[in-house]
């Protein structure tokens, strides 16, 4: 993945980490968070822009030039906020690739079929635990 324009909403641990990954692969990045102190989580090599504003307000996404974005990643700590921002990005601004992080997957039906990629951290962690457990079961203890 090279030279893409990526907007990340929510500069928490996950958002900052995603930003770090994308910085390495020479993309243009914009990070949006309503709390400016959150930007301290960004790594030193982060070279993108930061916008301190609430992305639920339409002006914020326009300021971030959402119409030119190739990718939007919604990683705020609120599921419903992520769902709303992702839908606005995908269905109103037609961003080609929209991804959102979610804790509770039970609301997934409302944006099914819209082409939004969902990463449910709860399910991912549960699977990882399951795998770790089953691999341990195979080990015979001395």
């Amino acid at each position: 993945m090279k030279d893409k324009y990526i907007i990340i909403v929510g500069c928490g641990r996950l958002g900052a980490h995603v930003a770090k990954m994308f910085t390495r692969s020479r993309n243009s990045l914009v990070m949006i968070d309503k709390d400016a102190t959150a930007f301290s989580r960004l790594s030193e090599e982060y070279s993108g822009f930061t916008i301190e504003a609430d992305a639920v307000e339409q002006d914020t996404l326009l300021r971030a030039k959402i119409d030119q974005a190739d990718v939007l990643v919604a990683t705020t700590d609120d599921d419903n906020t992520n769902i709303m921002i992702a839908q606005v990005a995908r269905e109103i601004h037609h961003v080609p690739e929209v991804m959102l992080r979610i804790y509770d997957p039970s609301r997934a039906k409302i944006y099914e079929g819209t082409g939004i990629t969902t990463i449910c951290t709860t399910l991912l962690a549960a699977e990882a635990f399951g795998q770790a457990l089953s691999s341990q079961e195979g080990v015979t203890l001395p």
Partner: protein
Amino acid sequence: MNIFMVGGGHQTHFLAKSMISKGHDLTLIEENSEICARLARDHQALVIQGDGTRPYLLQDAGITRCDLLLALTSKDPDNLVICQLTSKVYGVPKSLALVNDPANRLTFQKLGVQTVVSTVEMITDLIEQRLFLDDISNLSPIEEGKVSLMEIELKVDDRVVGNTVQEASFPAQSNIGCVLRGQEAIIPGGATRLEVGDRLIIICLPKYQSEVLKTIRGRLT
């Protein structure tokens, strides 16, 4: 009717009062336990404490039997999710969302919410209209403010007095629906002459309101 309200602000309290007095069955869902206790004390309604954006909670509350849902929380994303869940997943026939940020009204509509109400927008419109249009005696927005219906009384020095409707040349996006003259009500044609004391019932698009007034008075306000 079986009505669900999610979110327990001031509006919920007063809305609940009015809905119950009209004989509707009410289910109120609110996260804060103190507000829930108050709602349960004040109203003959089923009050459920919890996050109304969670499908299992809506299911347990009997959402499939709901006829009308009102999403009234203070968070716009929550109101959007509630309306989308209930209409897309549970087939609730009518849903209404409150938007706190007026700019989100259009967004909600584009994302499939049937009826979207912005209290801020309604109050702002009303204040603006009252502020510079105190000449209008009666003004009612129709269809969420898409059309305005207003009543204006003609005064001696108004520009259009003595003109026919055609001569007065009102803006294209407006129409005089009726002229009230004394006890008489006239549906005017192009040749109807306007007189002092006539009360004009005008239908127009809100953005042409000031132009209509300018046409009548010959000045703005």
